[in-house]
C-alpha cells in the first residue's frame, strides 16, 4: 500500500490513456475481437476474472499471452486435463534437503502464484481440480496443509472454454462460474480479419508488444488504477437499478421488479430460467459500469454503463432449464430481455 501511495495518484484521464494504450498493444497481435479485448481489460481493472469461450483457433491463448506481455506482469499457463490434480495448481509440500543436510517439508508454489493465470480449457479438469481455483480467485490466497499463502496482487485469472468438444469435459460448477466477473465470447473472425491474421502470423517477423509499464512498477500502477475504479461514484439510484436488474433474472422475484404491465422479461425468465443471478452479478454490473465511466472520462456511473455491461456480467450466472435448451435460448438472450424491460420501466 505504501508503494501505491508513493506513486502519483492516477486521474480519470490517466486511466483512459493507459487503458487505450494497452488495448492498442494487444491489437498489434490480436486481430479483431475489439469487444472481447475491452471486456478483458475492464475485468482486469475491475478486479475480477474472465471466462473466455470460443471455438478452437480463435486466439484465446494468444490473447491472454499478449495481455501478459502488454501489462508486463508475471504470467503462467495451466493446461487443464482430466488427470490434473489440485496440487498441480496450488502447489504442494515436498521434502527438500537443506544446506545443513536436514530434510524438511517445504511448500513448493504452484502455477497459481503469478499475476496473470491462463487456465486453458478449464472444463477438461475434474470439478475437484477446478475448485482448487476458487479460493485463489475469490480471496487472493491459497491454503495448503492448513497454511495460507497470499497471492501477489494483481491476480487475474483467464479461463478458456471450448464449447464444441464436450465429450470428456466437466462443466464448471455454478459456484465457480459465479466467480468470473465477465464471460467473454470469441467468435470467428470475418474475412478481412482473417486475411490480416494470415499476413501477421505467417510472415518471418512476429509483432512486438510494448509493455505499458516498467516491470517493477506494473503491479503498483495497475493496483492504483484498480483503486481509482473503486472510487468512481455510483449514485444510490444506480445501485438500485443494478439490484433491480439482478432480481429481474430470478424467477421468484421477476414479477416484482417492473411496474410495467408489459414486462417482457417476466415470461422469458419464468419460462426458461432455473436460477437467476447471484448478488455477485450486481457487483459485476457496478464495477464494470465504473470502468466504463472512467473510459468515457466520467467520475460517475450512468445507466447506460450498466446496461452495456449487463450481457457480459450476467449471462453466465443464469442457469437455464431444459425448455431453454430445447428452444435455443441462452443466457445472453434472457439478459437482453431483462435489460430491455428494466430500461422501459425507468421513471420518466
Amino acid at each position, binding site marked *: 500500500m505504501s508503494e501505491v501511495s508513493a506513486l502519483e*495518484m492516477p*486521474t*480519470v484521464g490517466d486511466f483512459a490513456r493507459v487503458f487505450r494504450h494497452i488495448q492498442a498493444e494487444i491489437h498489434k497481435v490480436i486481430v479483431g475481437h475489439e469487444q472481447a479485448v475491452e471486456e478483458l481489460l475492464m475485468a482486469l481493472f475491475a478486479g475480477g476474472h474472465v471466462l473466455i469461450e470460443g471455438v478452437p483457433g480463435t486466439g484465446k491463448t494468444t490473447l491472454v499471452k499478449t495481455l501478459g506481455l502488454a501489462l508486463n506482469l508475471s504470467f503462467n499457463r495451466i493446461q487443464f486435463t482430466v488427470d490434473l490434480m489440485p496440487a498441480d495448481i496450488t502447489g504442494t509440500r515436498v521434502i527438500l534437503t537443506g544446506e545443513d543436510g536436514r530434510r524438511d517439508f517445504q511448500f513448493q508454489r504452484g502455477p497459481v502464484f503469478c499475476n496473470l493465470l491462463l487456465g486453458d480449457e478449464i472444463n477438461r479438469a475434474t470439478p475437484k481440480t477446478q475448485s482448487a481455483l476458487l479460493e485463489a480467485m475469490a480471496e487472493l490466497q491459497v491454503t495448503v496443509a492448513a497454511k495460507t499463502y497470499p497471492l501477489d496482487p494483481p491476480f487475474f485469472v483467464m479461463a478458456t472454454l471450448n464449447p464444441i468438444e464436450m465429450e470428456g469435459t466437466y462443466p464448471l460448477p455454478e459456484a465457480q462460474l459465479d466467480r468470473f466477473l465477465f464471460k467473454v465470447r470469441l467468435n470467428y473472425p470475418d474475412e478481412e480479419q482473417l486475411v490480416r491474421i494470415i499476413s501477421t502470423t505467417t510472415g518471418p517477423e512476429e509483432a512486438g508488444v510494448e509493455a505499458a509499464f516498467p516491470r517493477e512498477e506494473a503491479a503498483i500502477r495497475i493496483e492504483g488504477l484498480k*483503486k*481509482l475504479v473503486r*472510487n*468512481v*461514484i*455510483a*449514485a*444510490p*439510484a*444506480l445501485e438500485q437499478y443494478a439490484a433491480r436488474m439482478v432480481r429481474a433474472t430470478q424467477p421468484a422475484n421477476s414479477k416484482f421488479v417492473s411496474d410495467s404491465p408489459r414486462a417482457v422479461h417476466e415470461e422469458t425468465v419464468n419460462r426458461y430460467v432455473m436460477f437467476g443471478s447471484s448478488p455477485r452479478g450486481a457487483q459485476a454490473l457496478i464495477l464494470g459500469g465504473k470502468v466504463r*465511466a472512467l473510459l*468515457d*472520462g*466520467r*467520475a*460517475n*456511473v*450512468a*445507466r*447506460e454503463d450498466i446496461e452495456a455491461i449487463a450481457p457480459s456480467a450476467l449471462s453466465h450466472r443464469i442457469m437455464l432449464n431444459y425448455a431453454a435448451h430445447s428452444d435455443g435460448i441462452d443466457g445472453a438472450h434472457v439478459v437482453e430481455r431483462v435489460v430491455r424491460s428494466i430500461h422501459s420501466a425507468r*421513471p*420518466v
Partner: protein
Amino acid sequence: MSSSYQVRKTEEKLGLIFGRIGSIRLRLNSLAWQRGAFGLLAWTIAIGAITVLAAFYLQPLTFLIAVAILASIAIAGVTESIRTAWRMHVNRAGAASIADRRAELKGRLETIIEIGQRQKVVKLRHGPEHLMLWSYLIEDTLSRQDEFEPARIEARRVSRSIYGLLAAVALALAIAPLIIRMHGKPLPIPANQDEMTLDLNDLHLRAADPDSDDGVEVHADAATMRRLEDKLAAESAAGSGKGSDTPMDRMMSHAKGLAGRLQDKLTGRTQQQRQRITLKLADNSQDMNSLEKRDPVKLNPRRKGEDADAHFEHEKNGGDSPIPNTPQLTANNPERNTMGGGGDEESSTPEQRANPSDNSSDKSDDQVNSDSSTNGGSSHGVGADPDTLFGSPAGSKLGGQGFEISIDARSEVKGPKAAGHAYLPPKVRTPLSSTQHPDEPIARAAVPEDDRAAIKKVFER
C-alpha cells in the same frame, strides 16, 4: 487548509448546479400544471358546449343518455389530464434525470443531486480519492453548464395542451350563436318531418309513459279515429293488465322528468315549445272500409253509444267521460277531414247523423273530432280511403312487411268523474253474413211413453 478551501469551492460550484437544476424543475413543473389546468378547462368547455347543444336537439331520454356519456367522457378526460400533470410533476432528482437525458450528460446531474444531498456523510466515509473524483465530477459537470440551461432542456414556457383548450373554446364559440338564437324558442321542425301519413294497420301502439310529451298531433277522419281509439283502448287494457307501473318504469319516468327539466333550463323552452309532429292516419283496410261504407250503424249498432263513451275530446265533452289510460290526441283538422268528396252520408258516424247540431260546437274545439260534418254538413271521408284523403299511406309502399311506429302519448284524465273509472273499450258486434242465422234455443222434446217408467225409476232411486 488547501483541502478545506477545495471543499468550500466545491460546495459553491455544487450550489450553482443545484440552482440550475432548480430552475429546470420549476420550468418542468410549470408545464405540468399548465397541462393539468388546460386539460381540465378544455374538457369542461367542450363537453359543456356539446351538452347544451344536445339539449336543444335531443328528446329527453336520448338527452339523458347523451349527458351520461358526455359526463363519463368528461370525467375520464379530466382525470387523465390531472394524472398526466401529476406524472409530469418532478422533484429535484427527477428534473436532474430529465436534464441528463436531454443534454446527454450521462447521469452526471442525477449523481450530483443524489450524492450532494448527503455529501457530509460521503466525505466522512470515503478517502481522498473519492473526494478527488467528487470534485472532478462537479467540475466536469459545471464545465458543461451551457448544455443544461433551462431553456435548452425545456424550450417551451407554455404547454402544448393549450391547443386543446383553444380548440374547445373555438367549439364553444361556434356553438354559442346557435344556442343564443335558439334559446327559448321552439325547435324548427324540418319540412319533411313535420307531417307523416301512415296506415292505421301499420301503426303499433303502446301505452305511453306518464312523463312523455304529447308531441304528436294526430289527424284522421272520423272512422279512422274511432279505430285508433279502439286500438288505443285495447293497448291500454293490455298494458294495465301487465302491470306496467314497475319500479323500473317509475325510475325511467323520474329520469326523463329530470332530463326534461334540465333541458328546459338549458334551452329556456317551456314544455309546450317542444317539437310536435303531425301524424296523418289513414285506414287502408279494405274489408273494414267496405263494411263501414255499406252500413256502419247496422254493422255496429252500439257505435253511437260507445262513441259517446270514448272521449278523446275531453275538453270538448267537459270531462264527462272518464277515460284513464287513454292517450291524449290533439286537434284533428276539420278541413282535412272533409276532403275527399263522395260518400258523405255513408262515411259519417251514427252520432253525426243523429245529432248534427253538435258539430257546430266541435268546430271551435281544437281536438280530435269524430264528427266531421262541420263543413256544410257533409261528413264525407269516413271509410278512410287514403287515396282521397291524405294521399297514399306510407304503409302501402312497404308491401307486406309494414313497419311499426311508437307514439308516446300521455294518458290524461280531465273532469270530475275521471278518477277511479277504467276506460271501457267499445264492444264490437260483428254482423252475420247472409248465410248465417242468429242462435235460437232448441225446443224441449217430449219423453216417450215407453221410457217414462224407466226414467222415473232411475230418478227415484
